[in-house]
């Protein structure tokens, strides 16, 4: 460990070195968070290299090999169409991570911008924004997501949007409270006195200073987004067949053939749990490291 650290110290430029040191420090201080990060990294690799890792094509039906129990050929068995469950789980990580990252990034970013703008402009704008966010907050998470699906229909991008929308007010709420304190800082007044425009103040002076709550929200939402995508797909209102998605694999056939092929219901659920578990571990540790007092609903 020390040797590896010394190597990076020698070779890397200062900026990279600071990053590497921060990462090593984080791993030392919070082994659980590092374990979560490791699992996430492995999942990301599996998603990127799915074509190489997956032993079979996730979409090809093979009616000669339906309901095969796990064996040397099919480690996780096969499903009702003879598709390899392991390959589908591996490809499913693409769907889960893609939807998770896109929706939490979009939701947190839009929410942060709304939160900052609301705190910056204050007065009537703030009041109006807050009322609007109140309205969005009075929908339980899944209900708002389902309403968006009802409007847009199913499919990958619509699911991303459906998960993004309920995240926005939650991120806006947290970021606004940080931005309110920031608004009183002398450097904001200084920038205004220099004649800097509103949006430049917001983007260049305020946004970088709410990075801590922003990153905390982003990681906290990742696990929730993956869970929500799985729930929507499970209800048949998310990603559509034959796209491999963990929630979708648990739908219908998994319960129907539970007695004959329990592996169909076992592995996708394990994958969901592991992914959410990893993101929660990482997110919790990141919050402890950055701002232990912040509460993320």
């Amino acid at each position, binding site marked *: 460990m020390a040797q590896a650290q010394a190597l990076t110290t020698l070779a890397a430029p200062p900026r990279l070195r600071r990053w590497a040191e921060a990462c090593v420090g984080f791993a030392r201080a919070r082994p659980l968070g590092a374990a979560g990060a490791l699992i996430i990294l492995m999942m990301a690799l599996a998603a990127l290299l799915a074509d190489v890792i997956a032993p079979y094509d996730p979409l090809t039906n093979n009616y000669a090999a339906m309901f095969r129990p796990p064996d040397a050929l099919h480690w996780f068995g096969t499903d009702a169409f003879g598709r390899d469950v392991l390959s589908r789980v591996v490809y499913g990580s693409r769907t889960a991570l893609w939807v998770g990252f896109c929706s939490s990034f979009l939701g947190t970013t839009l929410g942060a911008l709304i939160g900052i703008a609301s705190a910056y402009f204050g007065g009537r704008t703030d009041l109006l924004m807050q009322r609007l966010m109140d309205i969005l907050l009075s*929908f*339980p998470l899944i209900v708002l997501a389902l309403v968006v699906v*009802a409007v847009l229909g199913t499919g990958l991008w619509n699911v991303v949007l459906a998960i993004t929308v309920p995240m926005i007010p939650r991120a806006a709420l947290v970021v606004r409270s940080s931005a309110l304190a920031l608004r009183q800082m002398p450097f904001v007044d200084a920038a205004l006195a220099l004649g800097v425009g509103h949006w430049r103040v917001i983007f260049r002076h305020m946004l970088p200073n709410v990075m801590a709550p922003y990153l905390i929200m982003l990681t906290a939402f990742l696990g929730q987004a993956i869970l929500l995508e799985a729930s929507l797909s*499970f209800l048949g209102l998310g990603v559509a067949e034959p796209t491999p998605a963990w929630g979708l694999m648990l739908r219908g056939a998994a319960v129907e053939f539970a007695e004959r092929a329990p592996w169909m219901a076992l592995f996708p659920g394990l994958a969901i749990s592991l992914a959410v578990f990893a993101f929660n571990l990482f997110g919790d540790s990141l919050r402890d490291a950055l701002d232990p007092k912040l509460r993320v609903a």
Partner: protein
Amino acid sequence: MRRYLLQRVLLMIPTLFGVAALVFFLLRVAPGDIVELKYAGTGAFAPKEAIERERAQLGLDRPLAEQFVSWMWGIVRFDFGTSMWTGKPIADEIRIRLELSLQLAIMATLIAIALALPLGTLAAVKQDTWVDYVVRVFSIAGLAVPSFWLGILIILVFLIFFKWLPPLTFTPFWVDPKANLMQLLWPALAVGYRYSAVATRMTRSAVLEVLREDYIRTARAKGLWERAVVMRHALRNALLPVVAVIGLEFAFLIGGLVVTEQVFNLNGIGMLFVESITRRDYTMTQALVLLVSFAFVFVNFLVDLLYAWLDPRIRYG
């Protein structure tokens, strides 16, 4: 205090009005409607006049603003209209399902509290021992395991080991209490696990915090039983954040109901909600969203009240 309460209640009205307006217009922006879906489902050729006639019958041909005003006027008089799909009054459709979902929600909450308080307290008292680790793993897993998968696992275990399948029809409590509880216990457990996990974590950290207070040392110093110290001095003072969590997590409880009712084949509000969305039954979807949002806002209001009642230091003004 009274003024604050009145303010809170009055603020709920514009918020819920916003919810109603948002859902109403969003649903109608979407292309396609229930009439097209019905004809597409039968596969028969649909003459244009027939479609138009049916739309007119459902009031879908009127201007949006007019439809909205008449819907709102109905709600003010507690008249939610009729379902576009079945044609029956929405209030009746919801009433027959509400009992099931409400019972499930209450059972899940009770299970969560019954698990969380002892487990969380135990973990805090035995901090950093194996008991603490087991409880922490149990609660961290609860945040990750989706309730529908837990439900599927429960069914799998029962199916493989006991050849038992969830019954197809719902037995109300007053007809056969034992059968009713047997039927709802497992779905309630599937829904309640996440709830209990969050509450356990909260109980543990709250008790840990309280145990460091001076009055705990005083209680111990005067020779009080450890049991009394923990139960009466620590746990009671640690209850506040746990109560808050129950309100915050209500949203997840709803989500749990929606998916778990599918797994266990329970014809409750969650099932009705998913059905109404796939059928584009606007009137039903609207009514359900409004109902759920109202319940959500109301529960959070109740939690605030409970907060003030449990902790006399909190004064809303």
